[in-house]
């Protein structure tokens, strides 16, 4: 027995309302991606100059900075997970969380404790639901991160890194974020933030781009002291910006799929509703014809 006509029409109406919402979210995500990519590009000169400066100091002085020294016997590691604040983005947050779980396991196997730091409400929910302890959690900026947010996270992580291990400090810091490869591909990635390996950002240095012999004021060590926290913050900002662009792309794709599904559903429901309506009409006609025939028969027999 097919559903009643009224029911089918109600369902069709509710699906088309959902479609309007998913369509709107798709368009919003699409327009924000452009903004996210623009701010990612705008942050590039800073990261580039900073990397250059840090490599210059690292190359021309025998610096032995706590942020760059490998601890001999690491026993505790911090992990920063960068996820979204809101859902409706397909598998975006869950793939970061899965990567995080894998990393946690790998670190445990190496005999290291894991101290989780979370960015984005989704990660916080995931940890709260499992009643796990969290060392720090930030949210509210996942689709448009500011530098201030990156700095805040960096300060917290560096402080934890500089604390001696016996007092709850960590020996290394890993970041799990989603790299924006293209509109279609976003890949969850793990990088080790600290101890620092100074790497060039996106592009490798050009050949023949020899760093000049800098004079440092006041001296190389002090300069490095100031630069490294900035460098760490800039790396985190890079991760946040990549994650934001990935989140929006994932959301756009998820919402596009939802809109397409809603369209298919509307089509099917419309067909069913038409069929039900037609069946009703046919039945009514046959009833009227039957009724008229019965009347005619009874009139004839009198």
């Amino acid at each position: 027995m097919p559903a009643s006509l009224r029911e089918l029409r109600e369902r069709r109406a509710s699906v088309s309302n959902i479609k309007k919402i998913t369509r709107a979210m798709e368009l919003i995500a699409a327009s924000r991606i452009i903004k996210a990519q623009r701010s990612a590009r705008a942050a590039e000169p800073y990261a580039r100059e900073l990397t250059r400066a840090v490599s210059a100091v690292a190359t021309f002085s025998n610096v032995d900075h706590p942020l760059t020294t490998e601890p001999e016997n690491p026993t505790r590691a911090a992990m920063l997970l960068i996820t979204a604040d809101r859902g409706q983005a397909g598998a975006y947050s869950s793939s970061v969380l899965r990567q995080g779980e894998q990393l946690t396991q790998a670190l445990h196997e190496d005999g290291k404790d894991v101290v989780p730091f979370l960015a984005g409400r989704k990660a916080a929910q995931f940890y709260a639901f499992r009643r796990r302890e969290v060392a720090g959690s930030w949210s509210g900026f996942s689709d448009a991160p500011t530098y201030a947010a990156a700095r805040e996270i960096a300060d917290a992580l560096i402080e934890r890194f500089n604390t001696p291990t016996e007092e709850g400090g960590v020996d290394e810091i890993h970041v799990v974020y989603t790299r924006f490869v293209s509109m279609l591909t976003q890949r969850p990635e793990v990088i080790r933030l600290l101890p620092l390996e100074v790497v060039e950002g996106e592009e490798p240095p050009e050949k023949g781009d020899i760093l000049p012999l800098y004079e440092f004021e006041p001296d190389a060590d002090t300069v490095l002291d100031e630069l490294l926290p900035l460098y760490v913050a800039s790396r985190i900002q890079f991760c946040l910006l990549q994650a934001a662009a990935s989140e929006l792309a994932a959301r756009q794709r998820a919402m596009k799929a939802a809109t397409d599904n809603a369209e298919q559903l509307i089509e099917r429901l419309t067909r069913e509703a038409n069929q039900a309506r037609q069946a009703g009409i046919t039945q009514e006609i046959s009833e009227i014809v039957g009724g008229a025939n019965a009347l005619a028969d009874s009139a004839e027999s009198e």
Partner: protein
Amino acid sequence: MADPLQVEVVSAEALVWSGEAESVIAKTVDGDIGILPGHSPVLALLVPGGVEIVCPDGRSREIVAVDGGFISVSQDRVSILSEYARMAQELSVADAERELADARAKLDAGDESEETKQHLHRATAQLRAAQKAR
């Protein structure tokens, strides 16, 4: 005359200003430093305040408000990096004074957090730069 300096002012979020300049005057932790074309490579830490960029015509100048950060010079390329660099033209003395009063008030109220201190630094820098730009 030597070629002008190529100057870039970069904040964490964007390229704030770029262009040619005759000279750059900045306040580093060791004191003021003036940079003319042909200066030897240097990497210096800045103190919060204003950095002066003298335009190639020798008269007009741009002031950048920086809250620390550093300046790097090599081969007539000058980069000024500061997390919150801003052009002083976009700042007004009144606004900067208000910011400073805000930060002071918070600090006086016993808020010793790192954020407030940074806020104070930033406000001081912006006020100095804005006054210089008059």
